[in-house]
């Protein structure tokens, strides 16, 4: 089984919130105005946020899980 989710580069993030507005799963929260924090349990890796982010700082990660 593999799981897809996204990871944010906190250094480049402008904490604008554009990503969290787009996320259909409400998986992104702007942590104390500093950066976008993704809840990996909620995220399904659809990539909508990554395509929206004006700073281009969201990356889609694919992890292979052995079960």
């Amino acid at each position, binding site marked *: 089984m593999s799981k897809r989710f996204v990871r944010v580069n906190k250094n480049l993030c402008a904490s604008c919130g554009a990503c969290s507005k787009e996320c259909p799963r409400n998986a992104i929260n702007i942590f*104390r105005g500093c950066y976008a924090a993704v809840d990996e349990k909620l995220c399904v890796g659809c990539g909508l946020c990554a395509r929206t982010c*004006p700073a281009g700082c969201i990356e889609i990660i694919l992890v292979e899980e052995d079960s």
Partner: protein
Amino acid sequence: MKKNKSWLDYLWLWTIIYFVLGFFNILFAWLGMIDFILPLLFAIFGGNKFFCNKLCGRGQLFSMLPKKFKCSTGKTAPGWLLSRYFKYGFLAFFMIMFMNIIYQSWLVFGGAKSLNESIKLFWTFNIPFHWAYTAKNFPEWSAQFAFGFYSLMLTSALIGLIVMMLYRPRTWCVFCPMGTMTQIICRYKNRG
């Protein structure tokens, strides 16, 4: 899945209303101070970017226009435009320009300069704007501030629209001086 909309999602209207009001009476430009002060209050007292994340009409407008009119390439902006150097440099430039508006108003207040009834776009192009100043019972320095502030708001909105079209819809938000300033405050509050 469509998200439920609340009235907060219509604040982009404010951005348009602001420019229309100022076009007819420049003194309305003062209302733009709300967009300067509110984000700072949220950042200083709340330690958050609630303004950017939920209230900013400008950010909403930049998100909305490309959805409606497909007027954005959707490409990521070049690295230098997204870098911290550019963000902080642009913030510094913006603050100096803001100080200059205050200084010009001060000169008019002291009588060292007469009121200049025009707006300046991109800090370069003068555009006559005399029709917008008719309420002569307000002091002239307040009108000078209004002309300068309206110019700043319009110039930044135009830059925002240009990068919205060239790159991703909310590219302006990456180097928006208010966004940068509030993020610096939030990071400072949550340091360590």
